[in-house]
């Protein structure tokens, strides 16, 4: 098969991207199931209880994003380092290990009662299960750590033996951080407060810390390739963005230490620093738009440029604006653990991490398949999917925000009404969310279809 990659080993990214998209479909399917359970309480009960659907939804999200990050690294690290990947064989072996482990975990959730799964996998020996996002059996957690380690070795050796660009250094720093912080998923003390405190070292320090480095590095790579802007300019932006991310995001962890038993001094500290967290996201938006406006070439892959700019905008809205909305302690006191949180979680994850993975896939897939960009027709279909998914996600967020505001009003103000009674009054918002979710699913189907649209290939114009 023909391909346009500069280094043959970049092609290992392809199975990673395909698996990512496959698992993405599964994630959204279970999102829709939960959307229906929100309005028909007994839907699929007791076959698929809500908690099971939720584990499948969130774990598939995390796993497919990791597939996306790994694929992105395998694709861009050799090109940046100007040499072949240290070991394409290892990359392919890890791909299969990770995929099998991931699929087994999901099947385990679906077909074995969770308590039985815990027993079967020896949770007693090292109990780590049953915490939000970290539901995987301990043995699977160890597997994830091993895969990450092998991956870092492969990427690290490639970078060490090649050209050390800023993109590669920042990406590697982010990926090392990802692996190191994962180790805290093994720390599960008997004291719930300590458990919660360090749980955030995985969850917060991932999405508002090291993952931002990965995001920024992928964004920089794509912008270099599609705009032809000088590296010196890009590198400077990159450093400033990741500096702002870590300077605000590390102490910003404090915005989760308001009401879980940790001391009150976290309220001002977490508030002030997390209030600065939107800055790196805003800079990312400026970065994307500025580079595209000052571009030195017109890359034929218009869809990629659209994804990149979309990432800038929706990451800023979801993480920056929706994050800021509830990040100060006096506000969070009322919104903590409501649909407001769900609204923010959705748009932030989609805008930042889903979209950056779709950006690099959009850029790299055509090249791996032997053309600089897809045909105009295929790109048009892909751009349709961009708008369908992005607009429906904006609506999901708006409806959940509406639900959240009403929930806070009815449940948390004054005496308050009981939770279940309040939920009944939010039905209309949940219906609208589920309808938007269905449109999201249609957008995703259109996205997958765009890979199969034929048409005359677009050739480079510069």
């Amino acid at each position, binding site marked *: 098969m023909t391909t346009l990659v500069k280094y043959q080993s970049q092609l290992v990214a392809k199975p990673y991207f395909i698996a990512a998209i496959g698992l993405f479909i599964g994630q959204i399917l279970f999102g829709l199931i939960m959307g229906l359970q929100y309005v028909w309480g007994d839907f699929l009960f007791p076959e698929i209880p809500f908690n099971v659907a939720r584990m499948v939804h969130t774990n598939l999200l995390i796993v497919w994003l990791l597939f996306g990050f790994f694929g992105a690294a395998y694709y861009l690290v050799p090109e940046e380092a100007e040499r072949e990947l240290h070991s394409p064989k290892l990359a392919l072996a890890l791909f299969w290990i990770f995929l099998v482990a991931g699929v087994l975990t999901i099947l385990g959730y679906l077909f074995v009662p*969770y308590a039985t799964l815990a027993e079967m996998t020896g949770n007693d020996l090292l109990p780590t299960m049953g915490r939000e996002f970290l539901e995987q059996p301990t043995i699977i957690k160890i597997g994830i750590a091993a895969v990450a380690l092998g991956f870092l070795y492969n990427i690290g050796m490639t970078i060490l033996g090649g050209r050390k660009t800023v993109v590669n250094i920042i990406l590697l720093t982010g990926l090392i951080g990802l692996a190191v912080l994962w180790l805290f998923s093994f720390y*599960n003390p008997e004291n*719930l407060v300590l458990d919660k405190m360090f749980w955030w070292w995985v969850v917060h320090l991932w999405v508002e810390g090291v993952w931002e480095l990965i995001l920024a590095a992928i964004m920089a790579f794509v912008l270099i390739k599609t705009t032809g802007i000088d590296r010196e300019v890009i590198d400077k932006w990159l450093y400033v963005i990741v500096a702002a991310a870590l300077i605000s995001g590390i102490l910003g962890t404090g915005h989760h230490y308001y009401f879980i038993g940790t001391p009150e001094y976290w309220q001002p500290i977490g508030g002030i620093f997390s209030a600065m967290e939107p800055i790196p996201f805003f800079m990312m938006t400026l970065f994307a738009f500025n580079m595209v406006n000052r571009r030195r070439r017109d890359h034929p892959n218009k869809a990629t440029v659209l994804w990149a700019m979309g990432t800038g905008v929706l990451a800023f809205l979801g993480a920056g604006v929706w994050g800021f909305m509830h990040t100060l302690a006096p506000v969070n006191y009322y919104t903590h653990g409501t649909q407001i949180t769900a609204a923010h979680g959705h748009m932030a994850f989609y805008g930042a991490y889903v979209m950056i993975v779709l950006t690099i896939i959009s850029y790299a897939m055509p090249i791996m398949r032997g053309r600089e960009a897809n045909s105009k027709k295929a790109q048009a279909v892909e751009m349709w999917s961009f708008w369908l998914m992005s607009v429906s996600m904006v609506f999901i967020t708006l409806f959940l925000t509406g639900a959240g505001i009403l929930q806070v009003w009815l449940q948390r103000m004054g005496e308050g009404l009981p939770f279940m009674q309040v939920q009944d009054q939010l039905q209309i918002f949940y219906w609208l969310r589920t309808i938007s979710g269905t449109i999201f699913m249609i957008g995703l189907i259109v996205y997958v279809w765009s890979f199969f649209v034929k048409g005359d290939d677009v050739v480079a114009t510069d």
Partner: protein
Amino acid sequence: MSEKFTKSMARNIFFGGSVFFILVFLALSFDTVQRLPERDHRENITESVVLGKKVWEENNCIGCHTLLGEGAYFAPELGNVYIRFGNSKEAIKAFIKSRPKNGIPGRRSMPQFNLTEEELDGMADFLKWTSEINTANWPPNIQG
């Protein structure tokens, strides 16, 4: 960005700033861990509470409920359920025990977990202990 602001300045801010704030964060975390005993009343973590936390985890209660505001938003907050149920462990046990196997038609349902008496006691003790954590006065009212 301006010419005077060089790439190496940007790099130094990144590395210097990150290392500095990592150290501050570690110091504050250390201080927090020192102060926690008076807030979490760990002297009350009995064997039964420990068992309760394990049962909590191994049945994935967090997949529907929030606990101190974290978790899922499908079912009531349980950090203060002990108080909401009139400071009654028995009421908590009775509720968990009485969930119909096939759910309640048309209503969001909680599974029947078939917990043993010992596990039920552990769960109730765990939820009681949790309700006594100093959470800076959260939640705003009894509804959670």
